[in-house]
């Protein structure tokens, strides 16, 4: 169940409480997020929408441990990440977060296989074990036959599939998608959303996704709107007393 009123059960996979993020630009303070609460259970698929500058990516960065809040706490699988040191956060990200970016962000000089293998280089897996994991991840996204291709030899949709394989290869606790279809045509976007949806439904992945596209947002279990730093529910499954089933 996804809740934004701070009353979620204490064993939610992701718990956000009283999250504030303020930027200082010149002499001016800009409050991007205000007293934000969120509870996400394992296997939930949440979409975040909102106008540019509303704080969607900032929220994703905070949830992914790439940025630190001004106030408030984020707890993931009982680990409060807001108290972690930078080194600890790096290790935590490697273990718990899979990132999917709008521009795919693949390393152009590495093959699809090598790109997907990157997160596994941080583990103690042997070469053959890493190979097995990478082949599995690439099979899930339907690109097992393209593993020796470089990003420049792939279409945008295929590149994003490789990026998804890279995000899931280490079996992270949850996936953060920042406009995963923002650079794709409708057909490719639909394929990518189908894939992400399958990760949630078949593999039980927890996904938090930022998008501008209402069609894409519809694939999420619930879409939350960020406006002026506040999180507002508007899920297609129906909002009930601050919670959605």
């Amino acid at each position, binding site marked *: 169940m996804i809740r934004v009123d701070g009353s979620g059960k204490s064993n939610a996979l992701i718990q956000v409480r009283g999250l504030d993020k303020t930027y200082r630009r010149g002499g001016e303070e800009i409050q991007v997020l205000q007293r934000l609460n969120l509870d996400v259970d394992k296997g939930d698929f949440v979409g975040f929408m909102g106008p540019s500058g509303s704080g969607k990516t900032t929220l994703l960065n905070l949830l992914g441990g790439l*940025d630190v809040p001004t106030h408030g706490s984020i707890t993931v699988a009982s680990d409060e990440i807001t108290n972690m040191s930078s080194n600890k956060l790096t290790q935590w*990200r*490697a273990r718990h977060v899979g*990132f999917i*970016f709008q521009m795919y962000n693949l390393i152009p000089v*590495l093959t699809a296989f*090598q790109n997907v293998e990157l997160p596994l280089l*941080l583990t103690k897996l042997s070469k053959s074990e890493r190979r097995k994991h990478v082949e599995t991840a690439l099979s899930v996204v339907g690109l097992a036959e393209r593993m020796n291709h470089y990003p420049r030899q792939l279409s945008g949709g295929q590149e994003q599939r490789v990026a998804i394989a*890279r995000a899931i290869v280490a079996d992270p606790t949850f996936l953060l998608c920042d406009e995963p279809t923002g650079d794709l045509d409708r057909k490719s976007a639909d394929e990518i959303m189908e894939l992400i949806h399958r990760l949630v439904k078949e593999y039980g992945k927890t996904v938090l996704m930022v998008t501008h596209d209402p069609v894409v947002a519809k694939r999420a279990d619930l879409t939350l709107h960020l406006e002026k730093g506040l999180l507002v529910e508007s899920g297609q499954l129906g909002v009930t007393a601050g919670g959605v089933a």
Partner: protein
Amino acid sequence: MKFLGLIFANLFRKKLRLVLTIGSFAVALVLFTFLAVVKSAFSRGTEIAGADRLVVVSRIGLTQLMPISHRDKILTIPGVKAVTHNHWFGGVYQDEKNFFPQFVIDPENQRKVMTELVVPDDQWNNFLKDRMGAIAGARTAARFHWKIGDRIPIKTTLYGGGSSEFNLDGIYHSERPGGDESQFWLQWKYFDENAPAPVKSTAGWYVVKLNSPDDAVSVAKAIDEKFANSSFETKSETESAFAAGFAKQFGNIELLILTIGGVVFFTLLLVTGNTMAISVRERVGELAVLKAIGFSGRAVLFFVLAESVVIALVGGILGLTLAYLLIPVIGIALTGLLPPLMLSKSLLTLGVGFALVVGVISGLLPGIGAMRMRVVNALRRV
């Protein structure tokens, strides 16, 4: 090991830039090695000088002659084991470009004092019996393709001038690595018989063999005191001090070479540093992704440093290989103008160390920048 693929993939990202950077590194290393070899050639006399030998010259200067009677007086000083004397002959073989040092030696004592310059006994005995005899250093003999029995015409402008043909009776080798094998020795008796009156019964300098290197200071002092207030005062110093002073006559070679070496070092640092800075700037987003997916700042620093060190080492080893091949050729071309050029193992090691230091320093600044880069800011730029 598992990161090698990533490091090498990034290295070969811009092949032309990689080749040019490695090329500039190699050229700079050739220059660095050549300078180091020249510096070492000038200071080699100091390094290989016998610790138990003194050189005694006229207090007025090296070109001033001293009476041959000094020899017996020096021999009476406690701590002196043997004394030999030399003259500078200053002859020309065929052409002035064919320079090599020619010394008139004292055959009776030469081998007692210059023990590391070895002549086979049979050759030495022939030399002793032949007043027109000569001994050549192995390097000079090889340079002019001389063999024992050859007649070597030498023309001299000193001591009244004239031309003589000497019989090559022997070839000496130095037992010390890097020792001077370019000298040409002549008989003192022949020289003295033909020398003009002011030069007769004189010596250009004396070389004194000591019982112990510990006696060097006291014996040098005793020699100079013995001839103090005479018409032929002396200046005695250890062979290494003499060699160092001789090298200084060419100017401050060390400062010159260090200055040029310093310029090479900083130029190389700027070239490689600039390459690494551009390389890091071009892939800020990629490095940010690496950090996002869990690579630590230190790992990113390691990747950047590894790249710059590989560039430096490959360029360095290429440069040292080129230097290894070129220096003997340059050495032959410059024979007579410079002391023998030798690329020693220690210089090769120094070259690799130099490359390594440049590699680490040039990768350090961009690497630290990448290490400290905030992922959020870097991703925003992609």
